[in-house]
């Protein structure tokens, strides 16, 4: 079973967001890393880039497939996880912790309300059979 913690919000494209004040940390879910398998490559944006909600902010690749990463919220990138770029296995091992990808300064905190709760995300992936 995939881990679906309660303290983050979820997007339909399998990213998670955790907020501390107006800083949002973004990564991909345990379900997403499990579906991808061994992650081998991660491409992240430059610090300072301003992301719009649902904008493509990077690319993630596993031995099996390539996926695009979409920002669940709008904001300026203030930090990227260089450790995860160099050692991508951390995304498989700890997707909600050391496998985080970018931190952004939120432009509009109300965007968080449109994201899914853990319960809603659990329903989404339960209906996401056939993988």
């Amino acid at each position, binding site marked *: 079973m995939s881990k679906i913690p309660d303290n983050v919000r979820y997007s339909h494209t399998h990213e998670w967001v955790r907020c501390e004040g107006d800083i949002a940390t973004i990564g991909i879910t345990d379900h997403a890393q499990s579906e991808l*398998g*061994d992650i*081998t*490559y991660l*491409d992240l944006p430059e610090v300072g880039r301003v992301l719009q909600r649902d904008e493509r902010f990077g*690319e993630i*690749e596993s*031995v*099996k497939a*390539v996926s695009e990463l979409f920002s669940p919220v709008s904001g300026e990138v203030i930090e990227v996880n260089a450790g995860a770029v160099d050692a*991508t*296995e951390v995304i*498989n091992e700890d997707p909600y912790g050391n496998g985080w990808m970018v931190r952004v300064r939120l432009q509009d905190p109300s965007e968080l309300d449109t994201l899914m709760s853990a319960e809603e995300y659990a329903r989404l992936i339960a209906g996401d059979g056939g993988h």
Partner: protein
Amino acid sequence: MAVSDLKRTPLYDVHLAAGARMVPFAGWAMPVSYQSILDEARVVRQHAGIFDISHMGRVCVEGAESLPVLQRVTSNDVSRLAPGDAQYSLFLTPQGGIIDDIIVYRRRAQEFLLVVNASNTEEDLRWIREHTAQSVAVVDRTSETAMVAVQGPHAPSLVAGVLESPALLDLGRFQFAEVEFRGTLIVCCRTGYTGEDGFELIGPVQEVSSLWERCIRAGAVPCGLGARDTLRIEAGYPLYGHEIDTHTSPVEAGLMWVVKLEKGEFIGRDAVMQIRSEGVLRRLVGMLLDSRIQPRQGYTVHAGDAVVGSVTSGTFSPLRHCGIAMGYVATPLARPGTRVEIDIRGKRVPARIVPKKNLLAPYPEHSEG
């Protein structure tokens, strides 16, 4: 093709019970991985992995004229095989294209076993039968047998122990023995598709299934097609449909070492001689990337503004910690050390041409001393 239409190997239920992810491959439902593709590839480089390769075609060719028939339809010199020897070989078209790459086992003077690609088994059977003699029987044994590969530095001793046959350790590469196991004979050949030492085992379904369990109890780790593909790319081995097909010649694929022009007449010989004398415009090479990004089949290779080739297979190498590829490039650029760029989804990623077998580098702990 619906999943229910896929053929299943005798180990299908065992794979499901072990939690394998099953994928369609050449009409078969096959395990792509059990846990992690990269961990499975590493275990084969460092210890021993076991692969179900029962999807591969197994064809018996027997009879008074079996040797001359095989000399005519395959490119390598079958007369060099003594009973107990095997060889890598090709079926060629009259135009010099590659119909399949195969392994020919000589079991007795007039009895041969061919192991062919799953995707080509039907076509290969048709091809041999079209060129066979009346005295030769060509029988598809795929469904009544199973086949597993045990690969890795510890694989030979593991297999010898499970089969209680220490003599297996005396076999050289591409030699095989038929070892008695529970009253039947198991063909044990020192071959593989990973670049590591090991054995490929062929025998009746029940016994090979039992050997699978025993090898795992002895420490072999089950590995899927994902690891198998990564390992064979690292080892520089071609895969039919990627590096070779009916539109590629053994000259450009670097496979002339299994085309024995001096052995006498065989199908494709004249065409290959002509291609070789005319020279080829492209050659199959290995490529090492400066990045962890993976090249994939069909991506273009560039030198400056010119497209100079394309990728046939690519993966992330757990040995090299970077993207690696095989592909065809224009002959003048095929020299090792040449710098090229691979277009990966619009990004130009620098890469270096290397001989195919140089994709396989030892793990640091192997290179010490």
